[in-house]
């Protein structure tokens, strides 16, 4: 097995030679530069993962020391939360509660997904809560009061969300108003528009049609058939495994370092265990809610866009260094406007999902709490507030934490005041972890 030399990981043991390739050795046919005649001391950053399990353990320890915590704090936090609530109430660790969490996480999760894009730029969007409420109102007015075709109303609603986000992005990118202020204005203004649209009654009941039907609480994948959940889990595992092995083959063919087969198998097996366990639990209740299926599909698409397309690369570049991006020919204003449009679209979609849980568009749709929960979810999941670092999966992890807490507090019958205090504490903890890990990364030269 050839060790991947480009993997910046593993033991800093300088005596461990890179098998097959040594970057300190000049390539054949080239005059070594004079300074290379004296072998320079091995750079301690020249990190090579040792073979076998030991290498992975060392890599893990080094990453934790270097502040590259990734999803570790949130996974540990999630387990602690589940343990605490399970000890408090035996009903907590049940299939029905898992189903409850999965179903109610989707609306806020979509808000958080849009926010991940914005946070990657190092900016903030405070308007997502209001936009989600407004979207529900727009959809309700169009489909119920004006009797539009439900799908058409959905499309117009999503376009409205994109236009609202794009407008805010335009004001930020082109006029130069700080994003914080623009979206704070949006936070107030769009809430006002929503109240005006909803009129005196304040609530419009929705009919279970189109997207609203898919988002509603009794809509399950394949009608809740047991096969449905397992099919989804199977698709995820096969897709993950196949893409991993395909990439390994392409990299080996091109002669660049590739992940070892053992690691790929291990990752796929871990995913398989997780996916089928979740499928089994959800099947013990009613199956996989359709809104969760849509949410997961969108996460896969967003992950692909961010990691595999030039657009995603531009988002990360602008989040990392605006001046460098500009000099590289990236249109910074276009990236900003489009990212805010994406955030607005996800806010609208999330608004439809939240409205579907109560089958009504009401004044509570723009609950400021939704905004805080969505931001908290994105940050808790591990997307940095400082821009340039994060993944869309952090929206899923973060919202799982938030909903797990909410479900537990709901089950214990705790009132809103306690709920706010605890969620605020969790958000603060997440931001502190983010800042500390950034500081550690800086001091170990990896920020």
């Amino acid at each position: 097995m050839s060790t991947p030399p480009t993997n910046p990981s593993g033991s800093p043991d300088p005596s461990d030679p890179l098998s097959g390739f040594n970057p300190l050795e000049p390539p054949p046919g080239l005059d070594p530069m004079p300074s290379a005649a004296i072998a320079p001391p091995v750079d301690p950053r020249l990190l090579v993962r040792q073979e076998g399990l030991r290498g992975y353990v060392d890599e893990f320890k080094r990453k934790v020391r270097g502040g590259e915590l990734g999803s570790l704090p949130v996974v540990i936090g999630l387990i602690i939360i589940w343990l605490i609530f399970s000890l408090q109430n035996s009903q907590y660790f049940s299939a029905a509660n898992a189903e409850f969490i999965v179903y109610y996480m989707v609306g806020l999760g979509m808000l958080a997904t849009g926010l991940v894009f914005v946070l990657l730029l190092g900016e903030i969007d405070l308007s997502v809560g209001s936009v989600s409420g407004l979207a529900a109102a727009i959809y309700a007015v169009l489909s119920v009061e004006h009797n539009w075709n439900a799908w058409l109303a959905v499309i117009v609603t999503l376009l409205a969300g994109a236009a609202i986000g794009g407008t805010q992005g335009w004001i930020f990118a082109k006029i130069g108003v700080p994003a914080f202020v623009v979206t704070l204005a949006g936070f107030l203004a769009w809430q006002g528009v929503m109240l005006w649209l909803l009129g005196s009654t304040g609530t419009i009941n929705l009919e279970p049609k189109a997207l609203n039907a898919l988002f509603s609480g009794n809509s399950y994948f394949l009608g809740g058939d047991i096969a449905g959940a397992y099919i989804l889990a199977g698709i995820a595992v096969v897709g993950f495994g196949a893409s991993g092995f395909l990439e390994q083959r392409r990299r080996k063919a091109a002669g660049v370092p590739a992940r070892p087969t053992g690691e790929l198998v291990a990752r796929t097996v871990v995913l398989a265990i997780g996916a089928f366990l979740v499928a089994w639990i959800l099947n013990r209740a009613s199956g996989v809610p359709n809104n969760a299926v849509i949410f997961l599909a969108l996460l896969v698409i967003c992950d692909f866009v961010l990691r595999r397309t030039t657009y995603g690369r531009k988002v990360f570049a602008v989040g990392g260094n605006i001046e460098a991006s500009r000099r590289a020919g990236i249109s910074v204003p276009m990236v900003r406007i489009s990212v805010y449009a994406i955030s607005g679209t996800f806010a609208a979609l999330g608004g439809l999902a939240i409205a579907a849980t109560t089958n009504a568009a009401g004044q509570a749709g723009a609950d400021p709490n939704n905004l805080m929960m969505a931001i908290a979810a994105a940050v808790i999941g591990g997307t940095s507030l400082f821009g340039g670092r994060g993944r869309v999966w952090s929206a899923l992890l973060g919202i799982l934490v938030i909903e797990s807490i909410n479900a537990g507090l709901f089950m214990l019958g705790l009132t809103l005041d306690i709920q706010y205090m605890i969620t605020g504490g969790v958000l603060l903890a997440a931001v502190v972890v983010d800042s500390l890990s950034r500081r550690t990364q800086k001091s170990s030269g990896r920020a």
Partner: protein
Amino acid sequence: MTDPVSGSYAPALADGEPVLALRGVSKRFGAVQALTDVELEVHTGEVLALVGDNGAGKSTLVKSIAGVHTIDDGQIEWEGRPVSIHRPQDSQHLGIATVYQDLALADNLDVVANLFLGRELTTHGTLDEVAMEKRAQELLDTLSIRIPSVRIPVASLSGGQRQVVAIARSLIGDPKVVILDEPTAALGVEQTAQVLDLVERLRARDLGVILISHNMVDVAAVADTVAVLRLGRNNGTFPMRGTTQETIIAAITGATDNAVTRRAARATGPRPEGEA
């Protein structure tokens, strides 16, 4: 785009004709006349050092060539044809790459992503990471650039490594002229040597290099020609071979009798009576 690694740089020029030439270039900022009738010629396979005191107009000149500023008067000629440069993209399309002093790299991206930023290779609309990584490794190998890995974030590289990555990045676009703005300003001794080695390798690949530097030692080490700017005007162009540093410093300061020469005379010549 031809391959930046093995691509041919066959000059489409007659012998001795400059690839880039400035003819009587002037630039004003309000009441400040930053450049007046500046002439400059860069040939392929030549390292042209652009020197001058603070405020001499070096940065303005470079930014005019790079398309950050537009010139008010005069002409820029590329391969003998007059061209107009209004935007950074115009300059890049001609084949001029500029490496700025403040390292335009995105810290959160890895070396490969930085090298190809804005010029990513794609297959079927998605990033072709494998091809980019392969090309990056080849490019760094041909330039004898040594970094721990092409897949680590640029943030974890040293200053010298970052500078050579920034220079290597400019070569991805297959330029004919590379402008280096104070490439060694913030570097240590060994890192400076690495960057100077790289400048020599650029020359060996028949690129025209404009090197802006305050450091006369660096200039003496790699430059073929030295162009001196003083108060926004040409103050002499010297072949490095056969020109003493004193002559260049005199041109920079505008006087043969100045603080630098007096100091040099004190150090080498007989000490004045009073100090003995």
